[in-house]
């Protein structure tokens, strides 16, 4: 097994860039959503970028990822095509699902992003199955399953943990604990006990960390992925984080008062990007100029993607009844 080693400055900048890029893309989607041309539910991951980025940075391109309704970050961090994402949200033919899926159904097989779907818990056993197939085929692929603290309540997660532990399947369960399922606080859904200990009791090795610290996520994920790859069995990672915007939709919803002002403030203060920026500014010499350059590059990329999307063909009813069967 590899030792986790200190990151070099290039790698650090990449992590930063990747988070910043996801943030700007989400913000662009949020801004444009008001135009009422993205006509599908969207669940933005603003505030939670560090988990997607830290975990995916620890994967190989040939490794696999499954995700849930809040998938943009996972998809982008794994290398999923931006233009195809934007086109998908706009319902265009060039979208990654040809418009059939919208924001809640993303796929990019070329980078191992196997699919995201919005039935909570639905993809968790799929990740186990894909990883199982890898062992039966005797390749060294690892599969990651991203899901939330709400999802952890679904029975299928436990069935998945049991089967993964039984067959020592190289799957890494990544639980993004933002303490909420829609507007419902975890205390209304779960007793007061850590989730990761349940995974441990299932015989799955578990670790937990600060989901707003991208290097911490990366380090924990690297160790876990490496163990899974070496045949040490499934791994469960629980990361605490905070969702900034409304559960579904582009806006902030603090006016609904389901979160306390102090809590919101703490959440925003824990911004994974701001923190990493100041850390890198001090430690790795990341300069304001670098960041401006990133911002410009990302801005340009976003514009290209939106133009691509909006100028793509609109599919019609004639496309809608194809591909029901393979």
């Amino acid at each position, binding site marked *: 097994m590899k030792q986790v080693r200190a990151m070099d400055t290039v790698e650090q900048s990449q992590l930063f860039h990747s988070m910043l890029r996801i943030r700007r893309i989400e913000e662009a989607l949020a801004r444009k*959503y008001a135009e*009422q041309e993205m*006509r*599908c*539910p*969207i669940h933005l991951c603003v505030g939670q970028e560090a988990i997607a980025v830290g975990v995916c940075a620890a994967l190989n391109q040939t490794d696999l990822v499954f995700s849930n309704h809040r998938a943009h970050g996972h998809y982008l961090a794994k290398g999923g095509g931006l233009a195809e994402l934007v086109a998908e949200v706009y*319902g*265009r033919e060039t*979208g990654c*699902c*040809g*418009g*059939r*899926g*919208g*924001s*809640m*159904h993303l796929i990019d097989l070329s980078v191992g992003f196997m699919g995201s*779907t*919005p*039935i*909570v*818990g*639905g993809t968790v056993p799929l990740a186990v199955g894909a990883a199982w197939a890898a062992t039966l085929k005797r390749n060294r692929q690892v599969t990651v399953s991203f899901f939330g603290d*709400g*999802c952890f*309540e*679904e*029975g299928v997660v436990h069935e998945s943990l049991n089967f993964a532990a039984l067959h020592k399947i190289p799957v890494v369960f990544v639980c993004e604990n933002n303490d909420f*399922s*829609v*507007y*419902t606080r975890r205390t*209304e*859904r*779960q007793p007061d006990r850590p989730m990761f200990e349940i995974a441990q009791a299932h015989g799955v090795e578990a670790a937990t960390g600060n989901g707003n610290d991208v290097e911490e996520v990366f380090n924990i994920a690297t160790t876990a992925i490496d163990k899974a790859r070496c045949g040490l069995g499934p791994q469960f990672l629980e990361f605490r984080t905070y969702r900034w915007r409304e559960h*579904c*939709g*582009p806006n902030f919803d603090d006016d*609904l*008062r*389901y979160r306390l002002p102090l809590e919101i403030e703490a959440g925003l203060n824990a911004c994974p990007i701001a923190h990493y920026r100041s850390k890198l500014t001090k430690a790795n010499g990341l300069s304001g100029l670098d960041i401006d350059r990133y911002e410009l590059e990302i801005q340009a990329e976003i514009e290209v993607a939106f133009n691509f999307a909006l100028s793509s063909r*609109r*599919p*019609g*009813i004639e*496309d*809608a*009844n194809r591909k*029901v069967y393979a």
Partner: protein
Amino acid sequence: MLIAKYMPELEQRSLSFAEAVREALEQVMEKDPRVIVIGEGVPDPKAIFNSTIGLRDKYGTGRVFDMPLAENGLTGVCIGAALNGLRPVMVHQRIDFALLAMDQLVNNAAKWHYMFDGKASVPLVVRMIVGRGWGQGPQHSQSLQAMFAQVPGLKVVMPTTAYDAKGMLISAIEDDNPVLFIEHRWLHDIQDIVPEEYYRVPLDQGRILHEGDAVTVAAFSYMALEALTAAKALRTELGTAIEVLDMRSVRPLDVGLVLNSVRKTGRLIVADTAFRTGSIAGELISQVVEQAFDKLKTHPVRITLPDHPAPTSYFMTEHYYPGPQTIIDEVLKLVGVDRHSDGYKKLCAVTQRRGPHDTPNREFSGPF
């Protein structure tokens, strides 16, 4: 019984479907302390499209519950609570999530009374919402009534008007059997005259929404409103009177009502909110032809969704859902009216949808 009016008169109180549901819950909870309400988001600020708002304030955390994401387990919990004397009302924001609870609903709730020789029963209501529009897509817009309606022991209803929503929800909660109460998302904001008093609407009867003798259109849920629009336009523009039946109940089907109408019209269209194959529309047609084959002048017709999942894209869904125009066209085919006439063209103009095709009304701006 009141007949739904979509332009309520001044002196009568009008409520939306969601408000009617809320009022039913409130009144039953007031009357019967055994009634509890549970579901993901029931006490949250959005309160299941406002249909449960204020209930927790009024009845407390001991009767109004949010729940973990555990549809099968919690359905079982509600069944167990029902067996021990409570009358739970469970809510799923989308009927698609109820697929997770199929085991408990089909193996336990539906069969308990029968298999234990009537010694116990399961007074459980499950509200399930059928999604549509704004890119709900393949996993959030299924209309699964036929899947449940084939299960002996379950009752399945799909009220259309706010009036019926209140009366049928009250009946459902008072009923000693498991009742699935299916709400089409596009009905929630539609107003109707709803009396303030506590009243019941039976769970096994359809009703005539519009009288006519040309064609019988037996319609389920939101399709009953589409059929009503078609009926009004057909009468005004062409003088053709179709009979629109709001079926209201899916199990049992009020086949008697349809047979009576078909005896008069000799022609049957069934309009459903679900995929074509295996739909309850097919079941209804089968029952009608088994029992009244001789009364039909021509083949029956189904109006349904096509046999593929709902795509998400605005552009791909544009002609996905049948509406008044589809119904009119099928009616005219059956009665043999020329579709090149001026009357027909005017008719089309009248029923043409204004505004985007993927929202229930013009105020709706996504994303739910």
